[in-house]
């Protein structure tokens, strides 16, 4: 007999940590992006996607709103906006 033992990552759903955000969430402006990928590199959740300039986006299902992507962006092309703002769909 076996109890809980191992986990196959393909079957792991993870927690929907986007619900942790309380105040702010990142808003990608898509104006001055140079595709340096720093936002993608620094995200503790690994939930930033994108390849070409001005295509980067964040997965709000997981984004905890820490603000590091906005902080690292050399072009100030990401802003933290109030959670209730309508700037970008959740």
């Amino acid at each position: 007999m076996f109890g809980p033992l191992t986990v196959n990552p393909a079957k792991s759903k993870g927690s929907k940590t986007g619900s942790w955000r309380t105040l702010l969430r990142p808003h990608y402006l898509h104006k001055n992006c140079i595709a340096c990928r720093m936002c993608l590199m620094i995200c503790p959740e690994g939930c930033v996607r994108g390849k070409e300039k001005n295509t980067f986006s964040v997965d709000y299902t997981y984004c905890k709103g820490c603000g590091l992507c906005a902080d690292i962006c050399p072009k100030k092309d990401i802003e933290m906006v109030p959670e209730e703002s309508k700037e970008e769909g959740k």
Partner: protein
Amino acid sequence: MENSPLFKSGHTACAGCGQAIAARLVIEAAGANTIVVNNTGCLEVFSTKYPDTAWGVPWIHSLFENSAAVASGVEAALIYLGKKNATNVIAQGGDGSTGDIGLQALSGMLERGHDILYVCYDNEAYMNTGVQRSGLTPFDTNTTTSPAGAQSSGNIRPKKPVPEICLAHGIPYVATASVGFPQDLSRKVKKAISIKGPKYIQIHASCPLGWRHESNQMLPVAKLAVETGLYPLFEYENGVLAGRKQIIPKPVEEYLKTQGRFKHLLNNPEEIKKIQEIADNNIKKYNLKLES
């Protein structure tokens, strides 16, 4: 498209966790052909709470202090199976599990010459249990077991020099890195992986909760640790200093004032002077000063 296939979203690290950033950068640099052996600690708890796992690579956790030994067994098994050349093995843990309780296992792994990269995520205290002092807690840090008080300015001892201890084992690669410099971190992991034998990388990984700074302040805080000389970034290849991040040194106070764990020092020039001496010694020792 999946977010990050090797270290997936949905883990439960605190917002702005430096260790989460570092762990993802490490595994992304090492690649999918990697087996990870993890000590007990924040990273293990927040990334593998049954029935979830953040790890897209084979991953195992056994105990607090034995990742270096478990990884030695994994590596030995891979050699036996003829799979070692195609597989990287990473052992990893926090500063306490690496430099305190796991130092013996780490030393054994290094001395035996296993082809393993050991990664220490150094957030400078036992964060998982509530910010208790570790051997890698810096001098004068206020932690829950080295509290500042009427007759105390925090942790009474300087940071344990684990990279130097590793270096003394004669291993081919020892480096320090910081989440404040993610590209440098990735490069060092790739380099380490390309070298056969035991490797050690110690990554300064900020902990907003334990260091007491806002989660979005991770980058300036981490960078200041390097730019003051308090956390020198260096690389040793085959015992020779092969690289270091040169800086225009900033006064340590600039770093100290960013975090609650050093708040008690700000009106104490005598203590700040002692910490400045630590930075100055690092700057001299590793020749960090950028000549302008």
